């Protein structure tokens, strides 16, 4: 992956982010509701509403507001939310931490479950173990997150007391506690992801095992374990890497149900709150952050992909 290629990809990323900012702006305009009404309540008079809108600059034209936001944002000032006076950059920092950690943990757990299970199932293809694993993955794919969450909380928080039922402990208060607080939400997310990864990897490995070089390896007398780990896994991992990357992006801003159920102050609920209150300042920044994280992670994945598969270096 040469520098020129990378520069090109970065350029594309910048274009995508610019487009995201504009789309956010347009969507922000068509959202129902009114920030002043949200803040001032149903008994506000037109004068109070006008005074409020003047204070937060909402009496400027839409384009002016966008440009104001953009100019300030480019100098590193994301403003404060009129809803609660919190600085947006501080809020993003606070909320990115649990979101990112949750995703990392969920991905790690999902891979830890899916990779061995898929290898085993592929190896025992068609046998009971494979069927059970397949059935479980089909079921998990179809199970709504909230149902998994309720079950996990009941068993592991209420009955066994192994993990807190809700809440997030920031890293600053100790990594151990942070892990404990993210355990149940991460497992909830990981089970669904693991089902997806399992299916992709299992089928990839089965495909690979049919290749001639595997037959050759087998003929050379390599043990099944050596064949699986050394020869079959790596090519089958490639599609998985792409998938993991895509998921990172999707989950960073999209785990709203999980954030709500487990009372985790993440980016998803922050975005949702901004949409509901029509909080323009917050909305622009949080959507852009989520999109930027997505683009970055996928760029990283592409680089990783190139490292894993030398053939890709010259493609495209």
């Amino acid at each position, binding site marked *: 992956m040469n520098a020129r290629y990378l520069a090109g990809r970065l350029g594309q990323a910048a274009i995508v982010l610019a487009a995201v900012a504009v789309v*956010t702006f347009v969507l922000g305009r068509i959202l129902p509701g009114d920030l002043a009404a949200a803040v001032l309540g149903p008994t506000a008079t037109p004068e109070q509403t006008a005074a409020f809108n003047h204070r937060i600059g909402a009496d400027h034209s839409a384009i002016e507001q966008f440009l104001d936001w953009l100019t300030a944002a480019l100098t590193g000032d994301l403003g404060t939310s009129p809803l609660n006076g919190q600085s947006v950059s501080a809020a993003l920092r606070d909320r990115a931490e649990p979101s990112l950690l949750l995703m990392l943990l969920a991905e790690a757990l999902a891979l830890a479950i899916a990779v061995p299970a898929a290898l085993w199932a592929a190896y025992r293809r068609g046998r009971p173990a494979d069927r059970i694993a397949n059935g479980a993955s089909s079921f998990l794919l179809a*199970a709504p997150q909230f149902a998994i969450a309720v079950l996990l909380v009941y068993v592991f928080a209420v009955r066994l007391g192994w993990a807190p039922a809700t809440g997030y402990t920031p890293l600053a208060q100790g990594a151990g506690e942070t892990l404990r607080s993210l355990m149940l939400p991460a497992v909830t997310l990981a089970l669904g992801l693991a089902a997806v990864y399992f299916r992709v990897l299992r089928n990839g490995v089965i495909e690979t095992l049919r290749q001639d070089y595997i037959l050759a390896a087998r003929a050379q007398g390599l043990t099944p374990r050596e064949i699986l780990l050394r020869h079959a896994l790596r090519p089958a991992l490639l599609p998985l890497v792409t998938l993991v990357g895509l998921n990172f992006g999707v989950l960073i801003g999209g785990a709203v149900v999980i954030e709500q159920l487990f009372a985790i102050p993440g980016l998803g609920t922050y975005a949702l709150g901004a949409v509901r209150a029509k909080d323009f300042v917050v909305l622009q920044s949080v959507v852009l952050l989520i999109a930027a994280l997505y683009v970055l992670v996928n760029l990283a994945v592409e680089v990783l992909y190139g490292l894993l598969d030398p053939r890709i270096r010259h493609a495209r």
Partner: protein
Amino acid sequence: MPVDTLVPTAEATHRDKVTTRRARPGAATAAASVVLGTIVLAALLAPVLPLENPEHTDVSALSAGFGAEHPLGTDALGRDTLARIVYGARVSLTVGLGATAIGAVVGTLLGMIAGLSTGWAQAIVMRLADVLLAFPALVLALAVIGAVGPSATSVTLVVGVLFVPGFVRVVQAPVLSLAQREFVLACRAMGMSATRLMLREILPNITGLVVTYAVTMFGLGVMIEGGLGFLGMSVPPPAPTWGGMISEGRQVLAEHPVVTLTPTAVLVLVVLCANVLGDRLTAVFDSRGAML
């Protein structure tokens, strides 16, 4: 899993090649077809079926269990669960089918354009897909649904738009390689128009792929509608939706778990069946491909 796993499952399924099950339809496929068929039929015939009014509340039968009068019991407002599931299916299926259709048609078209063309057209399509993928799906959903008003139409529209990039990616890669094949090059050399090329030569070759992916996306669409309903962003009450029923039922989860478990089970069943059919189709198209 609602919106969250939109892309994952999408990505997953098109690579999903359950090649172990070869061509013969198994009992699972048959059962899945029967279940889905029954639900589709019931949804279509809902107005003429002997069902109660799904919005009729009955305070004398709150959270009633299974019984003769209400086969699947009632919810916390005494509304007949069976009727609500059947009428809710109309919403779920409309969203599942409609969104898949939007995603498939628009996505396939754009994917073919991106696969066959180079330069600007390709760049624009792929960047558009990137923007859609990078954009938080819920923000998009809320904005569109808020602007248009919550209805089966707006939910279908927004989920359909969210499905487009998945189809683009599924279609673009194989089209890219098809474009290098002799028969396509030959057609081009003979001066066949791009439109004709796409429809006559390329499309038949990717139909299997698109159909397979679409079946799984249908299941996902149903799941997403459930998720949106759960967050209160689907068709507004009192109209029944599965997600809404699950969410409302949670209020009485402790005393009357059945109220929320029944619609959950139906949702799981439908998505499961769609996935089983998707697997089956994959196997069919795979084995056909193998014979080529």
